């Protein structure tokens, strides 16, 4: 704890993040940096130190931005404070990436020596360059037999105009090149600017809720200083509070007495509601406040919407509380109450993408012990009403206006960048054009790899486009996308009827030309997903009153413990209890029990 009082002058601070594609070794490199700077002793190392959420370790991805303070004694003999601000690596989370980058002056660009640069890495480097960050290019995994550092250097030069002399060759796994990276951070990345004696301005880039300390905000001080017992004010909300604790991330929270301009640290605000300390707000000193807040962030934009419902109606209040608490930790999803005829009371939620949706669902289930049903995901449509009655935004197919009310429907489009080895160009062109995509252009990164650009409706992208891209390129292609505005489209609402009753949570909006085909594929999938019931259950797809597809889930004829278990009644009862649990995981809609997966059937249809 002797480091606590040791103040490092602003000139010896460095704030940086790491930009890397998934599996290109970001977490391993971060682990090595922590080790080499003795932030964590080798015996305490677990791998993926910064990915502390179970889900992150399981999926091998970073979901939440995190920060850690390293203290490094450089070759010049001086000790530097290096703040590593970790960034998520999946396409859904570019919003988190931009927030992290804004808190830095530099970034390590980590590229796998065998894989080369990927679509999303490119997008993030462009983000970093836009923010004026210094880029330190690192080619990682040079120990691999398949490593081709020469080719990757050529790519970096061609695509990002990075001179090869700047590139550091490394193997985070073996520790090669890691000391050079630390030196480069000190030498190349400029120290933060900002007058320590000016009025305090601290940008909140993340937060979490701690049941003892209340809302803990992660701040980057743009100017001024922050001391123990200061009374702080959140400039947007106007809330004031005497701070409970301030400190740095090592990576656990370690209290310090003071933070100065340029520093990254945390502040335990003592506030009870995260709404009072929103990400993007500016922290200042209540006694000597800054004249104006920092520019802050664009709020996260939801692209994918779905209803989240408790499996059992009585859990609705628990779901509401869970969403509120989770939102403190992940402000990038939205939620508001809605109700469904089929599913009862729930919430309409907006997500950054499909993976984000999956993660929110899993966190609600794991961290709050809830059992949930999600309705079919949708994008947000602009519906122009007839007779000049304006435009409404509709993100729930069930709430689509009647056909005679609609003048025009506009749907969101995206511009998709795909990086792929050349041999998969044909397969990926086909995938994208099948999804109503249009091809824009192609650029060679090196003789073996290209950058393809498409435009396509977002609705086509969210339905397993990413999974298809991966499977059709044997895992080699990568993608990124950005919004490209709204365009008119010929769309219709496809209703699904189960046992003759429309199930609103299964409705979806589809292109008119493919409505019948989609209807057929969807009911075929539903027939597989809906278990046999006591009576036969017709499953139909309809456009208006016109049925375009029909399948029948045949009646169940046998579910019996016919076997002789002797006097072993216990085993019989346990088998029945298991069946009961299975039934409780299903949603009763009318007289039919429908499992969770059926509501997401549109994501697993055959092409």
């Amino acid at each position, binding site marked *: 704890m002797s480091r606590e009082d040791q103040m490092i002058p602003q000139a010896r601070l460095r704030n940086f993040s790491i930009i890397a594609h998934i599996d290109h070794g970001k977490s391993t490199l971060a682990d090595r940096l922590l080790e080499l700077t003795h932030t964590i002793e080798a015996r305490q190392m677990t791998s993926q130190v910064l990915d502390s959420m179970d889900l992150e370790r399981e999926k091998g991805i970073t979901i939440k931005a995190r920060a850690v303070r390293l203290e490094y004694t450089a070759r010049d003999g001086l000790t530097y404070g290096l703040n590593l601000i970790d960034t998520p690596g999946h396409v859904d989370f570019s919003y988190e990436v931009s927030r992290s980058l804004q808190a830095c002056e530099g970034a390590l660009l980590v590229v796998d020596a065998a894989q080369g640069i990927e679509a999303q890495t490119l997008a993030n480097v462009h983000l970093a360059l836009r923010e004026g960050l210094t880029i330190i290019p690192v080619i990682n995994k040079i120990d691999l037999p398949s490593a081709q550092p020469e080719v990757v250097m050529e790519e970096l030069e061609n695509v990002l105009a990075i001179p090869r002399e700047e590139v550091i060759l490394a193997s985070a796994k073996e520790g090669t090149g890691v000391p050079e990276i630390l030196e480069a951070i000190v030498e190349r990345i400029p120290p933060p600017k900002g007058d320590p004696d000016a009025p305090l301005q601290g940008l909140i880039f993340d937060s979490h809720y701690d049941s003892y300390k209340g809302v803990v905000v992660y701040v980057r001080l743009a100017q001024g200083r922050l001391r123990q017992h200061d009374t702080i004010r959140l400039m947007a909300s106007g809330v004031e509070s005497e701070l409970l604790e301030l400190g740095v991330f090592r990576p656990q929270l370690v209290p310090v007495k003071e933070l100065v301009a340029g520093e990254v640290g945390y502040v335990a605000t003592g506030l009870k509601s995260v709404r009072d300390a929103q990400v993007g707000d500016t922290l200042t000193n209540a006694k000597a406040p800054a004249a104006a807040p920092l520019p802050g962030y664009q709020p996260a934009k939801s692209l994918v919407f779905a209803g989240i419902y408790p499996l059992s109606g009585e859990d609705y209040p628990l779901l509401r509380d869970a969403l509120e608490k989770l939102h403190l930790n992940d402000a990038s999803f939205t939620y508001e109450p809605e109700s469904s005829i089929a599913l009862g009371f729930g919430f309409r939620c907006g997500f950054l993408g499909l993976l984000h949706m999956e993660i929110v669902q899993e966190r609600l289930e794991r961290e709050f012990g809830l059992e949930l049903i999600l309705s079919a995901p949708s994008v947000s449509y602009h519906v122009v009403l007839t007779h000049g009655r304006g435009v409404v935004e509709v993100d729930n197919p069930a709430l689509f206006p009647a056909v005679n009310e609609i003048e025009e429907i506009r749907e969101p489009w995206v511009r998709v960048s795909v990086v792929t080895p050349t041999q998969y160009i044909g397969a990926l062109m086909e995938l994208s054009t099948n999804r109503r995509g249009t091809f824009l252009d192609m650029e060679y990164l090196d003789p073996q790899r290209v950058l393809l650009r498409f435009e396509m409706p977002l609705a086509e992208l969210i339905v397993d486009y990413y999974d298809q891209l991966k499977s059709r390129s044997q895992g080699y292609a990568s993608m990124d996308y950005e919004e490209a505005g709204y365009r008119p489209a010929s769309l219709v609402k496809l209703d699904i009827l189960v046992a003759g009753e429309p199930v609103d949570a299964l409705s979806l909006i589809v292109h008119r030309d493919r409505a019948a085909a989609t209807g057929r594929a969807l009911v075929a999938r539903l027939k597989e997903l809906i278990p046999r019931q006591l009576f036969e259950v017709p499953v139909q797809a309809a456009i208006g009153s016109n049925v375009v597809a029909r399948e029948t889930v045949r009646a169940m004829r*046998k*579910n019996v413990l016919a076997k002789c278990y002797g*006097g*072993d*009644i*216990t085993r019989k009862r346990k088998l*029945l*209890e298991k069946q*009961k649990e299975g039934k409780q995981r299903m949603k009763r809609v009318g007289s039919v029990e429908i499992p969770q997966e059926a509501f997401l059937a549109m994501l697993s249809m055959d092409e």
Partner: protein
Amino acid sequence: MRSIAGRVSPGTGSSSSLRPRPPVALYLHVPFCRSLCPYCDFVAVAGSAARGPSSRIAAFLDALVVELGLRADALDARFGPPGPGRQALESVYFGGGTPSLLPAETIAGLLALVDERFGLAFGAEVTLEANPGRDERGDPRALRKAGVTRLSFGAQSLRPAELRLLGRRHRSADVADAVAAAQAAGIGSVNLDLLYDLPGQSFADWIETLEAALALRPDHLSLYALTLDDPDAEGLTGPAGDHLPVASGARAWRERARPRQDDDRAAGQYHYAASVLARDGWHGYEISNWARPGHESRHNLAYWERRPYEAVGPGAHAFDGTVRRWNAARLDGYLAALLPAGGGAPALPPGGQEQLDPAMAAAEELILGLRTDRGVRREALLALPAGSSIFGWALAGELVELVQLGEDARVRLTSRGRLLSNELFSRLV
């Protein structure tokens, strides 16, 4: 000394009272087989443990006698010694395994011990499970003399191809011989176990087996759907579990067999058998069991009526009216406890138990009662939480019907409901 305590009439409906009661039946598990069948989950060992110089049968019998003594001591301590003041056993059941591998003298000796220590009611049912094979079915005359009143043959099928597929050692002609010999010896009730929903078994195949079985004029038929469980996945096969781990060959056999089963076909097979047997005057008194009137198995009825039963042998299950108890399946642990090396005091074998709470007891009573053609009292079903909505749902789904039996308005399964009974039962647990 043979007790002559009068029989308590079955189905008195007082079984959900949570008071321990002395057993009305005794189950003895004999875990030896000539060979193991790949579909079977019962506790059984074969190979050198079951025959030849290193056979464990003699040691097992010693241990079984010790266990019978310990269980009897415990019953004496709770309920007083057997005699006019205590319920005598109405049924003894030798299950397995293949208990017909034991010589008739051994069966006679065990029955004498059982009578002495537990009290055997006059006219008690004594069942022995037997394989039909020439070298494993035992001598019915000697068995009858030993006290066996009922022989239950594991026929499974009367078609040669199916018997081979199931890994059975006997031929279909052995079944006819075994039944004829039992009848000639004057065995009071002869049962055949048959399996439907065999992999690839056509409707015609099933009719063939059923008709061949009926032609042998058995007194009782147990028709079981072949059920390929995974006791490992159910967590039943640990050291204290009541099942043995599934051998890899059996696991592979089950995986190959499952896709060749078919619920719809099985339903047809079941309903066909049920209608033929009803037409011929058989009493379908439980989901899987039919008897010519008067030949219902009193032992199995005791399970379904939740009457208390004692049990000995590896993997055996007992019930005293409040607690369900079982022995672990593994023979080594069983022998080590009951026949300790170095002559120490024997201990009860490892196992487990569960205490039933009133809700579990009520659910069990309904589920077990509904398995029989007597069904359950309507009030008992309605007394359950959500009982009336479950009853309404089951009526609407044609799973149950309401019948008047004597004074009682009773609910029982329809023929369709029998095959869909888990749909109802899983709502009752």
